[in-house]
């Protein structure tokens, strides 16, 4: 009985972890076919904190403007004040679990923050950085 309980618990814990690992590695594999890789968490972190100047407003932008530097805590949309749930999978298991969602947010947020689309290498690096948080 006890063993069964441990087994079920283990599976319940493992499923979201597996799904997440799956989405990230699936995307990274895809990026590799676009001649990117290997991916480095360190490069991802550097990009995460890198500052970009918005061409129109002249203001500094980077990922932490909304997501803050502590990804285990909620952030706040800099323009609208909307609360952004924590991005670290350890704090929010829903994160990095869905391939389409990850891609959608890369499109939106790279365009706003960097002023251009992110390269496959950049996206892979950022995922490598985020997945272990």
């Amino acid at each position, binding site marked *: 009985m006890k063993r069964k309980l441990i087994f079920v618990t283990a599976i319940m814990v493992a499923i979201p972890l597996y799904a997440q690992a799956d989405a990230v590695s699936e995307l990274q594999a895809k990026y590799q076919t676009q001649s990117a890789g290997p991916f480095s968490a360190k490069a991802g972190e550097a990009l995460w904190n890198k500052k970009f100047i918005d061409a*129109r407003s002249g203001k500094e932008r980077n990922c932490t403007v909304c997501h803050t530097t502590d990804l285990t805590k909620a952030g706040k949309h800099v*323009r*609208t*004040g909307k609360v952004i749930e924590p991005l670290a999978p350890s704090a929010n298991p829903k994160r990095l679990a869905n391939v389409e969602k990850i891609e*959608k947010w890369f499109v939106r947020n790279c*365009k706003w923050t960097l002023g251009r689309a992110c390269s496959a290498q950049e996206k892979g690096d950022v995922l490598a950085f985020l997945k272990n948080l």
Partner: protein
Amino acid sequence: MLTRTKEPRVDKACRVKVWDVPVRLFHWILVSCFITAWLTLDNRYLDIHVFAGYVMGGLIVFRILWGIVGDSYARFRDFAFGWREAWNYMTMVLKRWPTRYLGHNPAGSWAIYLLLGLGLLITITGLLGMGGEERQGPLAGLLNYPQGESVIYLHEVLSWVMLGTVAVHLTGVATESILHRENLVGSMITGYKKAAQGTISAPPRRLVGTLMLVVIVAAGFSWFYGYLIETPEQPYRPFTGRQLPDNALWREECGACHLAFHPSLLPVRSWKAMMEDQSSHFDEDLFLEQEAIDKIETFLAENAAEQALTEAAWKINRNIPKTETPLRITETQYWIDKHKQISDEIWRDPKVNDNVNCAACHLDAEAGTFEDAAMRIPAGAGKSSTGIIKGIYEKITCIFSFNSSPSSIFTNKS
């Protein structure tokens, strides 16, 4: 003594109980309700305004009953004076030699009947208007928005007439107090008046008075109870609107970056224009699939401002010229008018963070209902929001600002 009395003149005057406890309580609580109602014209205090209205209505109904079943001086029979008597009394006042009445004098009783009638009409129009414009209260939905608005206009006019009548009443009290050299205000507090010895006192009726107080305090407690148990995370909302149509996809996609602005806040043409140009959605690329766009657009169009799902929807839509297609709610005239009083300091406060974040002040922004009295400027936001003196000053200037109709109780005139 300068005065003549109705009663047979006796050498020694004595103090006689004229106003029983229920009459005095009625008078002063009605006064408080009337003042409170005038000070709570701002939408934010609608719950207090409405409570004052309920108490006022209840008091007037009680007074009418008490005028029938009460005793001596409280009875209508005691001051059922005709118009001619009131007129005669007024001419006597002008000659500075009016008869002294122990109870209400003929002119005073006319003021009372007028005040009772006006108070009753104001309560009824308030209830009807709240049911029509706010969709709240026991008569919610009985009238539609335009009808509700007209009734509220009537409510305002009647309130001004009542204010005028109160002024006449006060002038009368002052005049009579001077002419008869007696303190009528004091009498309404203590219940006593000077009268000829042997004049019968009114029974105090303390039990009825206590009952009145108990009922009012209990009603107040149950009405405002929510404020006692609220937490910063869950502020009390005195009014909750009916559940508006919802859509999971809309809430997820539109609510990802900003408050999911309810479709009822803009007309169909605005939503269509917005969804057409999703690659430059206020400086962002939405990158939504066509299927998602279609679904969201359908939901937006089905519940747009034209449907008048809320008071705000109805008022936003009627003020947008048909030739215009606003892309921001904050561009609509109704929104602009309603937020005129918010200072730049408040907008700039980090807790408010500009005008995109409706939920900073509107507690029901997520639900889309935007009820009156569900608004609260975050504590400490902007420096001007503190200070009792300033608060009272603002309220008074609000009442006497004629530029926005006869002081709109639901400041929604446009």
